[in-house]
């Protein structure tokens, strides 16, 4: 029995495959490219994924799939939404995780995670949960997200756990609501994804941004990243 809510996931969760123009997840070349991406993420970041996946009780397959979906395994610079690095995390979300973890998850952040986050962002010890981070604090977080891949993966995994706890249904946490909320943001999604919802229901909910709904197919669809992970028996 772990510290957090148990995750239950069906793979593939929907009999539909991601398509955008001529780019299809069911094309052999795309399948090969996505398997290679998953394997390269495993090769480059397995130690970090394993460490923080163990800490936040999230499987390696899920973390690797998020990294591939978010950044294609590239340590990307901040985009127009300020999302940075492998797991495309924004400075404000980092602040929220560090300053408000216990309030949001009803469980204290472990000493290991706390000390790692404080080391990566020294000013985080002084974060005030009632005051958003200053420009200087955001800049410090951005640098850590960009230059420290372990920090990026650790905080991205913490966000996944936070969302799993936030959207759990009873004793079980499902991934589909976490996927759309990771992309679109917890606050914009929390009222739109209330209750037990199937992946199909979420896909047809047009109040959820298109990109966030595409996440569902990219990870949970046929030949989606989780499907490819288990079909190809990718291991660490």
């Amino acid at each position, binding site marked *: 029995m772990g510290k957090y809510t148990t*995750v239950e996931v069906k793979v593939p969760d929907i009999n539909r*495959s991601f398509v955008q*123009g001529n780019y*299809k997840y069911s094309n052999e070349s795309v399948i090969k490219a996505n398997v290679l991406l998953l394997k390269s993420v495993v090769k480059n970041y397995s130690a970090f994924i394993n460490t923080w*996946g163990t800490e936040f009780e999230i*499987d390696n397959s899920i973390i690797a799939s998020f990294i591939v979906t978010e950044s294609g395994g590239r340590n990307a610079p901040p985009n127009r939404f300020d999302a940075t690095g492998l797991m495309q995390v924004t400075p404000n979300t980092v602040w929220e995780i560090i300053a408000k973890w216990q309030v949001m998850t009803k469980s204290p952040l472990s000493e290991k995670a706390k000390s790692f986050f404080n080391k990566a962002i020294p000013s985080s010890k002084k974060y005030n949960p009632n005051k958003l981070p200053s420009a200087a604090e955001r800049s410090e977080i951005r640098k850590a997200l960009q230059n420290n891949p372990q920090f990026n993966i650790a905080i991205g995994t913490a966000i996944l756990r936070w969302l799993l706890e936030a959207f759990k249904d009873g004793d079980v946490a499902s991934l589909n609501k976490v996927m759309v909320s990771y992309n679109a943001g917890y606050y914009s999604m929390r009222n739109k994804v209330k209750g037990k919802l199937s992946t199909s229901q979420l896909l047809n909910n047009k109040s959820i941004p298109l990109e966030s709904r595409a996440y569902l*197919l990219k990870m949970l669809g046929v030949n989606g990243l989780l499907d490819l992970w288990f079909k190809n028996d990718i291991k660490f």
Partner: protein
Amino acid sequence: MTKSQKFLLILGTVGLLIGGFAIAKFLTRNVRNIRGGTVKLQTYDVPPIEEPLTE
């Protein structure tokens, strides 16, 4: 209880245990334990829908 009754009782108990294990294994044949939970691997009888999502 006679010897043969005892033997039948033990045989029945062992049979139930083995049968129960086999049924449990069959029912969870597509379920794998992953860190933090379980994954149920599914297959579909018809090809997947391949349509772009719309706004």
